[in-house]
């Protein structure tokens, strides 16, 4: 809730000053298709193609991934050493040492690819249909376990396993979204309100997860005793299967308010509200209890540990990573549009940490917007984004990319999106 309030305040700060400025009717900015004013995202946006300017089809592929420890150069170095058969224990420990102290070790990724068909029906209604594949993945090591690795156990001996887990889900989705557009309300300069809702029917393709079954599992590592009670469940679908592996429903909602003559908007998006149930999930379990003062005994116990097949279950429920995104923007300037959005995780699996995206769209050539942006938060702290588009009456082309946590070699995350749309 704190993060939600923070995001609302941030949006309000952006919107409030922007409303004070009036956009002349003759301004090029004012002539930008309202659909194109909705700045594209590198992140998941289920309403992205409902707001196409006219009926058409869009192909889109995008991926987003980041971690908070290893840069691109680090990963290439690890791969290089491995390929050279020169990877040493000290290299691995040095790599582990790059996890920021006091933080969870995070790794998350999302990817999607699909085709979208949509457009307006009259002046107040837009429809969008989609067929896409989507994947989520995350890996989290609790900060206390990270602390054990990074700081040793001279000062602290009790460590919480916390929410340490790893998982991934791939789905194919058929979606339908609609948006009702009303306005201007009150006056010619009044607000244009858009209310959208939609749903997606999900078919899981593959799934895997490892997590502890114990709440607040603790590991004690001291000079006198190592005590750990570990109960890990690994669940996965044994193969990739496009049908017959369960289903799910996800809902998305959007509320958008535009003040075109003022050149500002505010939008709230509640996405990915739903669950998917997965069949034919093989569950394995690893139980490890150690309470020993003998390091050899501990080593022997660890050597003997292995996952044992537990069962195969149907109807395993996975909650999709819910989020709410508050966006606001202004395009008062002739060529410049500024956007800010805060994506707040609302629970579920495979969550991505709170991140704020700042975009500036430059329409030096109105149909060829250039975009530059910053990302704050997430797993990497700060990131840089850029993109270029072709937004015409009949053609949409978007190429976007992001480098998170640093530039190129120093990047700890990256994102890319490519879209190609044709409108009739």
């Amino acid at each position, binding site marked *: 809730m704190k993060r939600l309030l923070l995001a609302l305040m941030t949006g309000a700060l952006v919107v409030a000053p922007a409303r004070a400025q009036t956009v002349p009717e003759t301004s090029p900015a004012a002539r930008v298709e309202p659909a194109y004013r909705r700045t594209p995202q590198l992140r998941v946006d289920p309403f992205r193609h409902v707001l196409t300017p006219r009926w058409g089809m869009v192909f889109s592929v995008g991926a987003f991934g980041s971690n908070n420890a290893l840069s691109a150069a680090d990963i*290439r170095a690890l791969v290089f050493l491995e390929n050279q058969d020169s990877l040493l224990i000290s290299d691995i420990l040095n790599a582990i040492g790059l996890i920021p102290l006091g933080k969870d070790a995070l790794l998350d990724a999302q990817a999607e690819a699909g085709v979208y068909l949509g457009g307006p029906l009259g002046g107040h209604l837009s429809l969008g249909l989609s067929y896409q594949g989507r994947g989520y993945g995350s*890996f989290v090591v609790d900060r206390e376990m990270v602390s054990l690795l990074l700081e040793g156990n001279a000062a602290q001996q009790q460590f919480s396993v916390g929410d340490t887990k790893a998982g991934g889900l791939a789905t194919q989705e058929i979606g339908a979204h609609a948006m009702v557009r009303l306005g201007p309300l009150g006056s010619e300069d009044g607000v244009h309100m858009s209310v959208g809702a939609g749903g997606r029917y999900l078919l899981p393709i593959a799934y895997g997860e490892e997590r502890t079954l114990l709440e607040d599992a603790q590991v004690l590592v001291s000079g006198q005793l190592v005590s750990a009670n570990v109960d890990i469940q690994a669940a996965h679908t044994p193969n990739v299967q496009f049908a017959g592996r369960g289903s799910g429903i996800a809902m998305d909602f959007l509320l958008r308010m535009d003040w075109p003559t003022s050149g500002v908007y505010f939008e709230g998006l509640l996405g990915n509200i739903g669950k998917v149930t997965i069949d034919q999930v093989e569950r394995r379990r690893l139980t490890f209890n150690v309470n020993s003062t003998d390091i050899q005994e501990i080593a022997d116990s660890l050597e003997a540990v292995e996952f044992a097949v537990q069962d195969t279950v149907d109807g395993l429920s996975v909650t999709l990573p819910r989020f709410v995104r508050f966006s606001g923007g202004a395009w008062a300037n002739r060529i410049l549009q500024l956007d800010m959005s805060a994506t707040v995780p609302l629970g579920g699996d495979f969550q991505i940490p709170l991140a704020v995206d700042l975009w500036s769209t430059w329409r030096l050539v109105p149909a060829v917007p250039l975009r530059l942006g910053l990302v704050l938060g997430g797993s990497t702290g700060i990131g840089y984004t850029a993109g270029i588009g072709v937004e015409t009456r009949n053609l949409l082309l978007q190429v976007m990319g992001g480098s998170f946590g640093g530039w190129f*070699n120093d*990047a700890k995350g*990256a994102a890319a999106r490519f879209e190609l749309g044709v409108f009739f």
Partner: protein
Amino acid sequence: MRTTLPILATLGMLLGLVACEPASVTDARNQLARGPADTVRYVLPLATDTLDRSDLDIQGDTVIGGLQGVAFDPESVSVAVADDLQFQNVTVTDVAVSFDPAVLAAAPPGTLVDSTAQFPALATEPRLQSIDQVDVLAGTLTLTTSNRLVETVTYTVTFVGFLDPTGSPLTASSVLPAAPGDGSYTTDVLVFDLANGTLLPSSAVLDLRATATLSGSPLNAANADNAILQVGIADFDVLALSGPLDPQVTAELTDSVEDFTEVTLGSVDFGKFEDAVIASTLNAATGTLRFRNTADAPVELANFALGAVQLTPTGQVPRDPATGVPLYETDGAGTPILIPVTDPGQSTLTVPRTGTNTITVPMPQLADRVVHLLLGGSRVAVVGSGDASAGDGQPSRITRTDSVYLVTDLFVGFDFTVPDTGVVITENSLQDGLDFTQNDIDDIVQNLLVRAGVTAVVTNSTPFALDIDLAYAPGDLGNADAFLDPNAVVVSPIQVSAPTLDAAGRVTAPVVDTVEILLVGRDIEPLLGIEFTATLRTRVRPGPGGNNRAALGDGDEAIFNSSVVIDVKRGGGQ
């Protein structure tokens, strides 16, 4: 982990697009070491080892009076109570036959004299009077008959109560030549074989019949008194005796007995304490002597004692040439070390008829001598000798095969008098290493490990202080001393304090001590390979207060609560 791989792959693919491949392994390594230089300390429990009696590898592990001890294999000797029982010079009969001189003088020539008489046999042998029956193994009865009549005498003797193997009384006839009449005797000797015969002393009677035809010589009347003498002497070995046997009456029931049994080195195993035993004096040892008597007569052992001898090369008991007494091992004063075997509070030991008797006697001096002789490579025997008496005046029976068996269970307690310099126990052991590759070993030693230290908190309730020298070297050195290996790592000496002891060398209260081992650099390298040989030299010294005496109680132990501290360096572009 399998779910993590796709995520890593996605991220790697994305990031790989924007990153350049390192130019060299060194560049790649430096890239990963870009973090700040840091040293991280990991503290892990190494082991909680308890050094107690189970670690001494003793076979025959036992407890004696609260002391840790070791039991010898049981040793047996047997004391035969009647294997050489014999009677000699037994006077069976001593008869004198006289005639009336007037009758002999008046008898005309040709008069036939036929005299029959019965005489008690064994009447002068109290040794046999309390015996109901004697089964004879072998022996003879020699009957000497003398005649001083001038007539030839024909005589027949029958020994009632002296049975031949068929159960018939011994009987025989013979002729006594005529004497010259001057008072001298002619003699005839009959020898009876007593082998496998039976004597019934209580019914022993000599039945004598003598006949002669008188010649009318006046000399017969002159020699009528004690005209015929008859003396029977028997010597025989006994197969069995029965009756109210009483050694007070029958001295033959008391005999000197002796037997020995060799004690071999394999009969005792001091395990890891062998070196300590060699260098120390044993102060506690107990023998449990289990006697078993097969005879249906109580057997009393008098002057019976156990001693030890060093056997001759041929395995014989050495003896004093003059006395034949075994050359027992002696104490510092030259006095033979002999352990008297008696019932508690008595001067003798009695084993009841067909029964057992068990006594416990302390024998530290004897055990110490035996142990040191054995560990010194000598052949050693325990000798039991003394006098054995069978019977108590009550109905009994002994046979030639009856014995008193003695089984000795010798227990040696770990109560030592240790020299001031202590004793050194050396032990080699082959240990598994952590089995790293050489590349990883070099990496750990050069790039990773700052130091490794082992700290052990020792709770010592043994009566010993320990000075430990440790060396280890890579590979299997067999029994070779790792200290002498050129690649050995010699660890700084470790000292474990000892508790204060009482006068008996027993621990008054455990002591807690902390010992540390620090390994740096290449010191750790042998431990990381496949295997290494460790040589441990432990100098065992007695704790204070016991005047060099240290007694290891059965519950005494040293608990090593050890942990390892590893400092690992990281980052800093190493």
